[in-house]
C-alpha cells in the first residue's frame, strides 16, 4: 500500500515536471474555499467544517490543453485531489467525473466507483468581464468517491 502510494506520488511529480517544461498549456491558478459538507459525517467532515484551498484549472479546448477534457486540481492542508470532466459542461447540469486521483492520505488514482458529479453554478456577472479570470462555484456529489457525501467549492483563478 505504502509502496503504491509513493510510486503514484512520483508519477504525479514527474508528470507535473514535464507539464512545466512544455510551458504551452493554458492554465489558471488561484484558490478558494470548500465547505457546506452534507452527508459526510461518517467520513470525518462536519457540516460546519471548511478549508481554504489552492487550485489549478486547465479548461479543455484551449491551446496546449486536452481538446475534450477539463482538469481541476485542488490542494488542501493535508491532501490534494485531481479530477477530469468532459469539457462543454453547462451551468446547473451535473457532469460526471471520469478520472480521479487523491495524493496524500494514502491516495491513489481511479475511476470513481460511485457516480461522482460536478455541478457548476453561474458565477456573478462581474467575473465574466475578464477572460483571464475563472470563478468556479460548484458542488461535488459523492465527493472523493464517498457515497452520499457532497460539498460546495468556490474557487477564483487567474490565467498564468
Amino acid at each position, binding site marked *: 500500500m505504502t509502496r503504491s502510494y509513493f510510486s503514484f506520488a512520483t508519477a504525479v511529480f514527474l508528470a507535473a515536471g514535464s507539464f512545466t517544461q512544455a510551458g504551452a498549456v493554458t492554465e489558471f*491558478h*488561484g*484558490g*478558494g*474555499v*470548500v*465547505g*457546506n459538507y452534507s452527508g459526510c459525517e461518517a467520513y*470525518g*467532515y*462536519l*457540516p*460546519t*467544517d*471548511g*478549508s*481554504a*484551498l*489552492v*487550485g489549478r484549472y486547465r479548461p479543455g479546448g484551449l491551446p496546449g490543453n486536452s481538446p475534450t477534457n477539463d482538469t481541476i486540481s485542488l490542494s488542501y*492542508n*493535508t491532501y490534494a485531489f485531481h479530477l477530469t470532466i468532459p469539457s462543454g459542461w453547462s451551468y446547473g447540469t451535473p457532469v460526471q467525473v471520469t478520472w480521479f486521483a487523491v495524493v496524500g492520505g494514502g491516495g491513489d488514482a481511479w475511476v470513481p466507483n460511485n457516480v461522482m458529479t460536478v455541478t457548476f453554478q453561474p458565477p*456573478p456577472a*462581474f*467575473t465574466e468581464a475578464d477572460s*483571464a*479570470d475563472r*470563478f468556479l*462555484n460548484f458542488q461535488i456529489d459523492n465527493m472523493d468517491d464517498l457515497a452520499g457525501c457532497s460539498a460546495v467549492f*468556490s*474557487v*477564483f*483563478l*487567474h*490565467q*498564468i
Partner: protein
Amino acid sequence: MTGKTILSRLAACACAALMLGTATTAAAQTFLGGGAIYNYTQECSPSNPSITSRVSYGRFHYRPGEEFGNPSEVSLTFTDGTVLFRRWAHLERSNSFYSAIGRQIFSASHSLYPTNPRIRVLRRDVLYPVNGTFGPDTALVFLRLRIQNYWGIPGCAVTVSGSFGRIPALVASAPAASLDGLSLDDGGSGAPPAP
C-alpha cells in the same frame, strides 16, 4: 402583547445568546479562502521583465471589522510566507485608496512595511446568501482589492481577488456542541489561545 409572550421571547433570546456564546468559545468564526494575486506593476521588481505577468496564488484569510470589531484584516499565505494587511475600518467597496498597515514574513525576511500600503476595495460581493448584503449571515463573499506599496515597495501595486467562506459554517441544524467534535480541519489553525 402578553407578558407570557415577552417572557418566552426573552427566554428564546437568552437561549440563542448561550448557543452563540458556546459556538464562539468552541471555535472563533472567521472567513477562510483563497485566490490569486496579479497585475503586478513593474515597480514591484524593476529589473524583472516578467513581473507584470506574474500570477501568485495562495490561501487567504479575511476578518471583517464590522462583525468582529476593528481592525479589519486580510492575510495572504503562500508556500514561503505570509502577508497581512490591517485597517481600522470596514473593507467596503470604495473608489478611493485608504491607508493600512502591512506586515510580512518570508523566508529570511520579516518586516512591518516601511511604506504603508494603501488599499482600495474594488469589490466585496456576497455570493451566498444570493443577493444578500454583507452581515452576520454572510456565508460566502468575494473580495477584490487593489493594493499599493505591496511588499512595502513604493510604487508596487497588485490586484488580489479571492473567495472566502465563513468557517465554521453557519448551519442551522448543527448543535453548537458539534463544533467541539473531531474535525479534520482543527490542525489548520495556528493561532495562540485567547488571553
